[in-house]
């Protein structure tokens, strides 16, 4: 076990999760990588980390993480999430519920279950989204990511000063999912970002690492928009 304590990252098999785990490993955290995708085991083996393949929408999945987490959790990054986009008029209630359950409720379930395991000065970082402010075709996703902000605000007040809780709200990030978008659609979306480019996993991972670090020791209950200015642009 490292002096920096354990850092748990969910959704750790993906590209963004990968950069987050690298940043946290660089400051000495003992990494516990969690994903529904069994590929997380190979990722963890390559990174010298431990892995748990778990469905966090189920208590058994949360239990598996608790079994592996130990009693010195310094960082939890709730990064797992899905999309099921559609206009509200076409969106099924099942798709609405699935996004809420995975993006919001599963994150809340794990965060709360870990309460006795956090060390003094621990940090929870929730992956919200610029879409929490509203986004066409994403009533479910907007609700889930906005819900994470409120949950974090409440926990920040309830758990202070022992544990800090903050959120990062990225916009478009360069991942396999965005690279699969039609180029003309992607270009239109990037044109609305004042920074003039899509975000990189590093852009987001650096902010996660900062919020998880002692340098952010006086920051709690906040949301940091890492969106190239998209949240203030027309």
């Amino acid at each position: 076990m490292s002096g920096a304590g354990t850092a748990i990252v969910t959704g750790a098999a993906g590209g963004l999760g990968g950069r987050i785990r690298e940043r946290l490993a660089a400051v000495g955290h003992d990494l516990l990588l969690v994903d529904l995708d069994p590929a997380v085991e190979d990722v963890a083996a390559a990174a010298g980390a431990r892995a748990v393949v778990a469905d966090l929408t189920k208590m058994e999945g949360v239990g598996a993480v608790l079994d592996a987490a130990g009693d010195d959790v310094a960082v939890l990054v709730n990064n797992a999430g899905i999309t099921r986009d559609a206009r509200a008029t076409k969106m099924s209630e099942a798709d609405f519920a699935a996004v809420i359950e995975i993006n919001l409720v599963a994150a809340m379930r794990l965060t709360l279950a870990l309460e006795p395991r956090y060390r003094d000065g621990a940090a929870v970082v929730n992956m919200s989204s610029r879409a929490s402010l509203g986004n066409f075709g994403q009533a479910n996703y907007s609700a889930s990511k906005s819900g994470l902000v409120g949950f974090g605000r409440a926990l920040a007040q309830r758990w202070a000063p022992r544990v800090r809780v903050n959120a990062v709200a990225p916009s478009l990030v360069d991942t396999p999912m965005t690279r699969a978008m039609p180029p003309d659609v992607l270009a239109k979306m990037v044109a609305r970002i004042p920074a003039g480019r899509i975000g990189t996993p590093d852009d987001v991972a650096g902010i996660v690492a900062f919020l998880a670090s002692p340098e952010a020791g006086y920051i709690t209950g906040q949301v940091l928009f890492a969106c190239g200015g998209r949240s203030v642009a027309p």
Partner: protein
Amino acid sequence: MLRPGSVGDDLDAVTPALTEAFAEVREALEAGRPVAVVVDARDLLGQGLPLDAAVATGLLGMVRTLGIEGAKPGWGVNLVAGGEGDEAAVEETVAMLAGSSLTGQLLQVGGANLGKVVP
């Protein structure tokens, strides 16, 4: 007007609360009726129970998206937040919204939000 109740500490109640609210709001909007979702201002600011805060702010995100999607068909969907003692102001605001072209907005009545972060 839609005013969801507290989910308390029941994690299993969060998804049904938000999904039922979505279905109810959508049905009203598609029928041409304006909708005001009412939440407790303390929940919006995270000053109450964590799961109630998640539902309140989740509803805000949903309302903002429905406001964007409903611009063309002319949907009127907004969120009103008031605290203890603000009941009359909330009712007045909801009545005002019924005849308004506002949509996708957060209207905070009372003073609970003053000096606080904008949700």
